[in-house]
């Protein structure tokens, strides 16, 4: 099992993801510079949060032209696991690996706080450690996390069980009062049809240690390790 964490100029959660994988999960991991192209020998690629290229033009819009992105698309098409967190999710949307787009948060401000998300689909490579409707306490930190997709697209996501996480109350019920950014259908994370590419706005790497007030993020990382082991 080997993880790779992509480093774009402006990524700022790359080292945090690296730390959790190496020091908390105790799994092999390496950095992948955005000008590199090879992803051989990797089982899972992490697109970390941050402000790739300063988020100039539009979040993720410049990063999708980085040399590494072509390799990531190929890697995903071959069935490799890809998880995009926050800015990484935005890049996956721009690159067309996931459907939909991000708008600015409804309140037009950056929001950094712990939120609750409910596991809608626990039969994925990223959530097999969770039980159905398990509530995870994980922080968000973004300006553009207001997920949007047209009605047809939303129906398709629902039909295919592609909605993996939705913002919710601590007890698990989904309602607008607990939707921090105005995301459509309270969507916090989605997966592609093939089930190997996940994008999520909350940061599991910020909630994988008791000392950081929540270990719920580990459910996601451990699920990936599990999924890779199952494949072999």
């Amino acid at each position, binding site marked *: 099992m080997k993880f790779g964490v992509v480093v774009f*100029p*402006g990524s*700022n*959660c790359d*080292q*945090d993801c690296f*730390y*959790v994988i190496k*020091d908390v999960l105790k799994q092999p991991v390496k950095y992948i510079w955005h000008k590199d192209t090879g992803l051989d020998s990797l089982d899972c690629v992490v697109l970390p*949060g*941050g*402000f790739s*290229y*300063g*988020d*100039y033009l539009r979040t993720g819009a410049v990063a999708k032209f980085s040399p590494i992105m072509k390799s990531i698309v190929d890697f995903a098409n071959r069935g490799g696991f890809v998880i995009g967190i926050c800015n990484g999710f935005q890049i996956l949307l721009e690159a067309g690996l996931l459907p939909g787009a991000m708008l600015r948060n409804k309140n037009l*401000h*950056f*929001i*950094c*706080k*712990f939120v609750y998300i409910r596991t809608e689909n626990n039969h994925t490579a990223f959530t097999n450690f969770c039980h159905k409707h398990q509530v995870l306490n994980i*922080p968000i*930190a973004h*300006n553009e996390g207001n997920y949007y997709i047209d009605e047809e697209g939303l129906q398709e996501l629902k039909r295919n069980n592609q909605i993996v996480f939705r913002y919710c109350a*601590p007890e698990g019920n989904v309602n607008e009062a607990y939707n921090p950014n105005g995301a459509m259908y309270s969507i916090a994370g989605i997966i592609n049809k093939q089930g190997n590419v996940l994008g999520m706005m909350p*940061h599991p*790497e*910020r909630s994988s*240690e008791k*000392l*950081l*007030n929540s270990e719920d993020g580990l459910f996601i990382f451990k699920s990936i390790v599990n999924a890779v082991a199952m494949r072999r």
Partner: protein
Amino acid sequence: MAKSEVYRALGLTDEEYQRILDILKREPTPTELAMFSVEWSEHCGYPRSRSLLGLLPKTGKYQTLIGEDAGGIILDDLAVIFKMESHNHPSQVEPKQGAATGVGGIIRDIFTTGARPIACLDSLRFGPLSERYNRYLLRGVVDGIQFYGNCVGVPTVAGEIYFEESYSGNCLVNVMCIGVARKDRIARARAFGAGNSIMYVGSSTGRDGIGGCSILASKEFKQGEEKRPTVQIGDPFTEKCLIEATLEALATGYIVGIKDMGAAGLTCSTSEMASVGNSGIEVELQRVPRKEKNMEPWEVMMSESQERMLLCVQEGKEDQIRKLFLKWDLNAVVIGKVTDDGMVRIKDKDKVVAEIEAHSLTQAPIYNMAHKKPEYLDELNELDISTISEPKDYNDVLLELLSSPSLASKEWVYQQYDHMVQTNTTVLPGSDAAVLRLKQTNKAIAATTDCNSRYCFLNPHRGAQIAIAEAARNLVCSGAEPAAVTDCLNFGNPEKPDRFWQFKNCVEGIAQGCRFFNLPVVSGNVSFYNENPKGAIYPTPTIGMIGVINDISHICTQFFKKEQDVIILLGSSKEELGASEYLKVIHGKIKGDAPDLNLELEEAVQHCALESIRKGLVNSAHDCSEGGLAVALVECCISNKEKMIGATIDNLLFKFRKDAVLFGESQSRIIISCNEEAVNRIKDIAKENRVPFCIIGRTGGKTLRIFQKKKELIDLELKKLYEVWAGFLPRQIQR
């Protein structure tokens, strides 16, 4: 323009001009004149404050590092480097970019030492929110901090915001940054070794920010002046790349010295690196990357374009260093070399445009300023509290205090800052101090900023000492032992004797307080000329303090943890209402003296609390400060909104006026909560330390109730308290 008009416009006096003539033994060139003006400005050379800054202690319990750009302490194999700096005038003129470049500048001061920046704290002060421009400033400053800090990937973990009339027309934006390095990797801001290369890295140079430090920061505001063009523009994305590239470059071991180009840009970096290294530097300006055409030599030397650094690189290693910066798509150009003649020689197309002995630039004149106690002070210090009517309804008073701008929750602000990136923030904003774990160790550091400028206005010496005492108390409540200080000294025009008297007394107060607590002042910044047309700001010596938590299991927070815990007050209350928030908000008076401060008692209270925390006896600890005991209790109940826990306080001593008991701001008091079984052990520790100890009540329920014997003075639902406290700022901002 006559010669005298030119140098005066640059902020130089007739005497200083004569001194320049004596140094050069000829007329200065325009470039030289510009260089002297910025290096001798208050912002760079501290001519008016240096004589007093020598009073501040430089040693403490931990080994200290005092560098050119920042200072710090040694903690095992690590160096913890930190500094606070002001960006007041730029923020007043252009709040978003002013605050943003304030963040960028202090972050550069930290990573230029080789330390990775791990956290920022902001201490902000504005005029009343009833004025539209002050609301614009608050919004703009917060926007600037989030714009820069979030993108650059350094968490903004704590801070403070106060509102006072005196900051209308001159807001304060003080930013502190903390970094961590391996102690054997600390870099210096110096150049030596003739033949070594001087390398320019980072953004290109433009006309932005020319005179930012000498013109903006070293003069008073006058009405209607157009100073917007002197504010720099920040690019946090470039800074993020610059951090990574610089730390990679420093790890090669090929860097002799490094300095960021902040205030006074290339002038400051060349002259100070040469001066510290006792060598000379020769630079060819044509090689400096530019973003504008036809810049004059003096403009290139004065530019404060952001995100630039100057390196001294070992001869022959230039290519290796250049490649590292090119990897991050950053400029990296050799613009000159180190010489052994001690001169800063600036050439433009091979023609020498400036040639000055480096030391003469960096040794600004020292002035002993006149000082005089302000005439208004004696009358202001007089307060006959018998003329203050006691409130009828204490519930109303408490709610009014909680919805006063300085006491209300700052959640609206800190939720806009990424305070978690880098995954070290163990205690999030909203407790007494931020706590950051140090990865790969079992230790953590706590950090806070503090200054009650109203206390300093009414009693500068004691007010400054209280800032030290309270910052230390905040750290102790987090489980940390106070270790070192940085200060950001914001004052009015030092040429006015009453303002300088405030400065002198505050510095002396800090020095005395730090000596008593064995705390070194490892870095700092002076910001004078903070005036508006109505007068000076309150004297504001903002204290940034770092504490060490030896074992992460000692980390403590301010909110109550569970029902039926015993609530204890350490320390004693006096009948003090002077300078209080209560007096200002409820009675509209800014009068009296700052609260009394007994340094021995303060130390004993802190020692008692820390020992109890370290022994695992304490479930929560919170410092009593603005708003007094009642407000502190509310904060214990509601500041963890996920888990609010009420309290019944039925054993308070009422030896004097009820309002003084509830809202007086007596110092050296800490509220702790603990299990029943821990009470006697804490009592013993208090006894050993001769600290007044009183069980005042118990946690539990969904209300806060405070009794005087059987009479209920306060009875409020937590939900209501939270709504009032947390709702104030968002409501004000949306006006």
